[in-house]
């Protein structure tokens, strides 16, 4: 049973930094509820015999050797090349009033 409320949608929108109008919230509340119902159908076929998984591919322990990938390391100029604004080697971002997590 997953009832999606308008408050939840507004809260999620806030967390995702998306500005929504009241109309959009109402619309998305209905739509998200329908999506949740659709996904919940999975619950009907899940049995205790089926272990939960986050991966459809039966693979594990894919590791990288601890070696510097010289070809992958960028120069500072390359790193900031696509940035809207940079001071030559660092990214410039607008003042953030929040805090580090």
């Amino acid at each position, binding site marked *: 049973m997953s009832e999606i409320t308008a408050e939840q949608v507004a809260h999620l929108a806030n*967390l995702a*930094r998306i500005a929504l109008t009241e109309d959009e919230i109402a619309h998305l509340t209905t739509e998200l509820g329908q999506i949740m119902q659709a996904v919940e159908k999975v619950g009907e076929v899940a049995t205790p015999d089926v272990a939960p998984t*986050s*991966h459809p*591919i039966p*693979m*594990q*322990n*894919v*590791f*990288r*050797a*601890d*070696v*510097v*990938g010289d070809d*992958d*390391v*960028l*120069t*500072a100029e390359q*790193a*900031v090349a*696509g940035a809207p604004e940079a*001071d030559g*080697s*660092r*990214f*410039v*971002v*607008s*003042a*953030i*009033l*929040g*805090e*580090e*997590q």
Partner: protein
Amino acid sequence: MARAALMDFDRALELFEPVIGLEVHVELNTTTKMFSSAPNPANSAFHIAEPNTLVTPVCLGLPGSLPVVNGEAVRSSISLGLALGCSIAPSSRFARKNYFYPDLAKNYQISQYDEPIAFDGEVEVELENGRVFQVPIERAHMEEDAGKLTHVGGSTGRIQGAEYSLVDYNRAGVPLVEIVTRPIFGAEADAPALARAYVSTIRDIALSLGISEARMERGNLRCDANVSLRPRGQEKLGTRTETKNVNSFRSIERAVRYEIQRQAAILADGGTITQETRHWHEDTGATSAGRPKSDADDYRYFPEPDLLPVVPSAELIEELRAALPEAPAARRRRLKSEWGFSDDEFQIVANSGMLNELAETVAAGATPAAARKWWTGEIARLANAADRDAAGMVSPAHVAELAALVESGTLTDRLARQVLEGVVAGEGSPQQIVDARGLAVVSDDGALIAAIDDALASQPDVLAKIRDGKVQAAGAVIGAVMKAMQGKADAARVRELVLERATAE
């Protein structure tokens, strides 16, 4: 920032029981980062680097880039988990912690959430006063560090009033292990000291494993301290605060103490504690309110779809377990008994943080007593005066050499101190300095006797007194001889010879 009202610490302890919980982040010193092949600035080899020169497309979250787990970081994490007495998860996975802040370019941090690599451990921690605690560990999980922001503009350079921020992603993706304790009860007035000693123990463990440089001043080791109070006799835990930005051992102790006093004042006044992050300010010795603590729900954790589960084999776990070094607390007990130090003597060494230096000096051939004397005495004094770390000033091998020169009678203590200053100044090994400066004790009696005869001849009154049996008068002659020998004589031998010469004729 208005300074909060504080209750007297002892009074606070009478009314309330402090409960603390500690989160320690350990930066691993692998060659490369957690999920990318960029050089790792938490490894000393890459510590000094220009901004954004230790980055790959993965560190910048560029489209199309994919993370791949560093196998060595996993091994280090398992070793650390085992050293913390934890069970290692047969299968663990990564999760995305979603938040918007430019210290990570992806808008999420790859961490572990519901399946950490290590859980349910216990660490033995010994306080400076000798009290021993078993600190319960809830979990240790792998994650990536975030980049560094420099706030520019505004009057203070702090976040408020900043006009813009500069972002360096060199640190983004550095492998981290976050170690989380369970609530720690029963420390009472020792709670601040326990917090400090715990972090110090984690540092010792990380260093002994060789998995981290573990330097707090570089941020290799960072601590967040949770503190709550509950009225005496109350079962329910009080509301906690989480103090961040505590970057030295001393600050950890002070920050916990401060929070106990601040919360006690509020609670005694009928107020309530706000669950929030607080920031420690080293300069004022106070904490200030930060953001209200987010619910874990707000991070919208979900399994990281780009990475596969980590399933360490039993063989790997046992291989790493077999390679674990001696636990710091057990090692201290062993060294204390091997060295034959009293409780006080050993505590002074342990508290000075020079246990490793002493052990290496003893291993290099010095007696434990001599090693202790030099490290906690003259070397500590020089380090203090120069405001340096004693450990870095002189090598244990040189201290052992110095002690041997004193032992063999080549140097007096006074000369040895001069030699030590030369070693600290980088003039070479003790023997080289003795040779270069000609500092060895003059053990040639002929040279001493010549100087003594001169001194006696120039002080006939003293000579007369000595012959009258007033032996204490010899001091003036001994002083003159030591001066003539520029201190390079053994005063006891000079005294013997003075009395011999004075009464010989």
